[in-house]
């Protein structure tokens, strides 16, 4: 971490360890400033995508499918077009270019034709003067549907008629599984999958479908440029990948489509896929007017992909000393109607299925399937959340079977640098698993509070259901890890451009361009911090994030953006500095402009038949986290209060400790939501809780204090030794809370979110 003053708030709660590898030339980074976008955000001046407006602007609205699976027989727009204030009504026939798009596979129609495959799939678009006029007109579009039997049960999908006529994911270097509805299947065979141990424990685990539930619903503004091109101001995680999907559908060249980052109200993976980008652009180009689209909360629930629901069969075999001998897992992930990033999620679920433990033998079979459920894709933790929940429940079971302390059991199996993962990859960088376990286990547990007490401080909270009756305490522990950055041979890079010039006062100013999406995580601070460090000047100006002036930064996801942006900014700044030195240290009225592209060390694909690496590594690096949780459970009513969470996380190097803690606290809260309350409920593919009244996320009365220990063990392959920090807390917290609930209740609780019925045992 940077030296200098540590913010007061931070000192009180978090502690750090000194870097363990002094031999690494990591360089120091100046301390972080306050959030650069902080003042506009606290005063209401910050322009989120939904706050934008332009002269002559129209409002767009999307007509969506009320069916999970149906054939479209006919579409009649006449009545809609006749409505007051309406300027355009568009269908798939109005898509001038490619009719389909997608993040990894272009399998999703811009607007449905022939068939709708999920509830809420976009069918038609309206632009009108007032949003209410657009809504009323959309209601007048007549669509004749012939309902089809939905494929709704993921584990059975591979035996049911295919929902796509084409095998979109075949021929891309994965195992071309001949079964119907397979998005990707991956089998990792490691050692002798039949190796037996002295003890064996097994279980079947399930996770419901979680929503990112970012607070700022999808929105954006498309402005035609008068030359056939379009500028799109949108809240997204990756401007360039949006552009590369939007342009072909509009039938335009990439440079005719410029994506600009508007204020992002959270993302968590849910903005990795497109939502309204193409739609707003289509309407804008058709009407030659700026068009704004803002999803309602209800629409947001169908407007982005979700976390994959999963069913996981697991068996863990160990010797008498508690050393893992063999792990076997069969994982089914419900990908929903379109591929999104299911293929990569499948791989992650499989690669991290065993947890950060050394295992000599394993058989991991992971399959993601197409169904007529809502599409699933990226969400914080990306496949590792699901398997961590299963794996850690198994570790607790194993500890019980062996009568070993669960933390001790984890220490005995902790993965360390030099160890080999089930994919055959050797851990080459930093991965201080044992240290993280120890540091977490050392955190003192809070003393039990006295009873009776105000109901607000008890399970059931404001509901006033107990003053202490039925309340039992439980303590749980979990450990998890996942990869950082993109994997499996993906060309993962980030560009940055630096312009040095002199201001009116003759001082050196650095203008930094990077398309990295600020989604709330604070990457703009990292960019400025690195630029200040490398250029030795306080005069750093960040240019707007856009595709117009700089190449791609890659996505604000996969815990990669801090690493990648720091790498790119550092390269560009150093190049600029060298140039400045070449010029004798002065600009003399001129200016310097350099663009540099940073790539992390290369990765390789997994062998489609064995799941083994085909080069040195499939993942560039890893990060782990451990959590200890105290819960109070009202065992009679099945209600819960999470009392305290202690977390230790492997953060590489914390450039901005306050922001790192913020990621840990926020990531933990999302995992808590999945453990206790969050699930998109579907029936035959139809969502029946698309609102914040029925899809509950944790409130201020649900999230406990989180005590964080930042374990700093610099990553040798990363600039300044940083690691991404956003995902590990979400990976472990669901598992850790479930562990504590089991301790309090003695029940198996093999499904999350845990319902009161499960706790009570009904």
């Amino acid at each position: 971490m940077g030296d200098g003053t540590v913010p007061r708030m931070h000192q009180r709660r978090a502690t750090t360890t000194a870097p363990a590898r002094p031999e690494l030339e990591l360089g120091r980074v100046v301390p972080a400033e306050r959030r650069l976008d902080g003042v506009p955000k606290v005063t209401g001046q910050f322009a989120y995508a939904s706050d934008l407006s332009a002269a002559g602007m129209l409002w767009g609205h999307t007509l969506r499918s009320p069916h999970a699976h149906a054939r479209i027989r006919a579409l009649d727009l006449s009545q809609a077009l006749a409505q007051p204030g309406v300027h355009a009504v568009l269908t798939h026939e109005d898509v001038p270019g490619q009719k389909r798009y997608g993040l990894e596979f272009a399998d999703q129609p811009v607007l449905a034709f022939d068939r709708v495959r999920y509830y809420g799939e976009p069918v038609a678009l309206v632009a009108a003067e007032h949003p209410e006029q657009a809504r009323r007109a959309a209601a007048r579009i007549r669509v004749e549907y012939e309902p089809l039997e939905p494929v709704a049960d993921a584990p059975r999908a591979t035996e049911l008629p295919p929902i796509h006529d084409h095998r979109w994911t075949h021929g891309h270097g994965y195992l071309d599984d001949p079964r119907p509805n397979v998005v990707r299947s991956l089998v990792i065979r490691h050692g002798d999958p039949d190796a037996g141990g002295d003890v064996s424990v097994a279980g079947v685990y399930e996770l419901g479908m979680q929503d990112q539930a970012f607070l700022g619903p999808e929105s954006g503004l498309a402005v035609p440029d008068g030359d056939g091109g379009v500028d799109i101001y949108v809240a997204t995680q990756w401007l360039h990948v949006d552009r590369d999907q939007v342009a072909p559908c509009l039938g335009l060249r990439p440079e005719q489509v410029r994506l600009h980052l508007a204020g992002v109200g959270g993302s968590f993976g849910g903005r990795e896929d497109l939502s309204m980008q193409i739609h707003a652009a289509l309407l804008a180009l058709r009407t030659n007017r700026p068009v704004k689209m803002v999803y309602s909360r209800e629409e947001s629930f169908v407007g982005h992909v979700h976390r994959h629901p999963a069913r996981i069969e697991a068996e863990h075999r160990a010797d008498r000393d508690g050393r893992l001998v063999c792990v076997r897992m069969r994982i089914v992930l419900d990908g929903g109607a379109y591929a999104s990033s299911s293929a990569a999620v499948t791989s992650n679920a499989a690669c991290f299925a065993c947890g950060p433990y050394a295992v000599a033998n394993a058989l991991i079979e992971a399959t993601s399937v197409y169904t007529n459920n809502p599409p699933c894709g990226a969400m914080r933790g990306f496949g590792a959340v699901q398997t961590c929940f299963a794996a850690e429940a198994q570790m607790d079971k194993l500890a019980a079977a062996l009568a070993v302390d669960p933390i001790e059991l984890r220490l005995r199996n902790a993965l360390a640098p030099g160890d080999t993962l089930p994919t055959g990859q050797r851990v080459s960088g930093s991965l201080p698993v044992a240290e993280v376990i120890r540091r977490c286990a050392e955190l003192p547990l809070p003393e039990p509070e006295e009873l009776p007490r105000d109901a607000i401080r008890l399970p059931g909270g404001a509901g006033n259901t107990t003053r202490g009756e039925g309340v039992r305490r439980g303590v749980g522990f979990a450990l998890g890890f996942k990869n950082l950055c993109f994997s499996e041979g993906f060309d993962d890079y980030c560009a940055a451009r630096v312009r040095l010039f002199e201001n009116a006062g003759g001082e050196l100013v650095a203008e930094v361009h990077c398309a990295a999406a600020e989604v709330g995580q604070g990457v703009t601070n990292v960019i400025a911090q690195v630029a200040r460090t490398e250029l030795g000047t306080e005069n750093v100006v960040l240019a707007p994030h856009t595709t117009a002036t700089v190449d791609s930064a890659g996505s604000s996801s996969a815990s990669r953006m801090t690493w990648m942006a720091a790498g790119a900014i550092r390269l560009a700044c150093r190049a600029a500095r060298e140039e400045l030195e070449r010029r004798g240290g002065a600009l003399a009225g001129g200016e310097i402009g350099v663009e540099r592209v940073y790539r992390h060390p290369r990765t390789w694909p997994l062998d489609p038949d064995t799941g083994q690496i085909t080069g040195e590594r499939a993942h560039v690096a890893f990060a782990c986290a451990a959590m200890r949780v105290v819960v109070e459970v009202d065992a009679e009513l099945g209600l819960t209060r999470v009392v305290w969470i202690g977390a230790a996380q492997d953060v590489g190097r914390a450039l901005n400790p306050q922001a790192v803690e913020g990621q840990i606290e926020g990531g933990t809260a999302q995992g808590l939501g999945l453990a206790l309350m969050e699930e998109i409920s579907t029936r035959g593919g139809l969502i029946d809780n698309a609102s914040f009244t029925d899809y509950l996320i944790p409130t201020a009365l649900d999230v406990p204090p989180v005590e964080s220990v930042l374990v700093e063990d610099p990553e040798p392959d990363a600039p300044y030794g940083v690691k991404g920090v956003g995902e590990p807390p979400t990976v472990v917290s669901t598992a850790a809370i479930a562990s504590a609930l089991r301790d309090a209740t003695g029940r198996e609780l093999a499904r999350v979110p845990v319902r009161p019925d499960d706790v009570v045992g009904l």
Partner: protein
Amino acid sequence: MEVLTPRSLAEALALKAERPDAVPIGGGTDVMVELNFDRARPDALLNLNEVGELKGWSREDGRVRLGAALTYADAMRPPLCDLLPALAEASRTVGSPQIRNRGTIGGNLGTASPAGDALPPLLVEGAEVEVASVRGSRRLPLSEFLLGPKRNALAADELVAAAVVTPSGQPQTFMKVGTRNAMVIAVCSLALVADRERGELRAAYGSAGPVPALVSAPLADREAFAERVAAAARPIDDLRGTAAYRRHALRVLTERALERCLA
């Protein structure tokens, strides 16, 4: 759409008689969700915010008259919270401070949801609903006012004017089960009065039948009371919970409420 904003109760009743299709809007915490989510597009709204007679509460010969526009925040303040403690406890479980500042008793009656949290505490205190129209006003017991899920006994030209209660002054409580610790619609709820004066136990459940309903028994039947409440409920399986859980929870809540009120 049209918004009518009367400045007095008489004006409100006249407008309602003229425009029986006009949907009353008080705090708007139910009506606005319908509008924002595009679930309702009434031709007219009758904005009751400017009708002074509906606000606040008063005492009239031993009875307490809660104006239809009484908010949950009002119900939580002394001295009203001491007169009707279960209603105050229930109010504290409603939504958030923002909702409690706007949401009203009249609106809760108007919505007549099985999950309406003001309803069980009013039922156990034997509340009557005062409804008014240009034809005059009438009072009917709350149990007769609630007809079914989201159905009440208001005629098209009537408004809720008040809820009228004679506070028992007896130990009482309210509890509500939800799957998070604040801001939930009840999975099920219970209000209970241990009325020593009348030698009677009265409980009313919410979210466990088509309407919140009252169950009573002699004080002496305490042992069997929890079972009785659970048996009287008519819960269903829905998004928020199962019928089996609701019955189970009512049993637990009743036992605990008895503990609290008879301790």
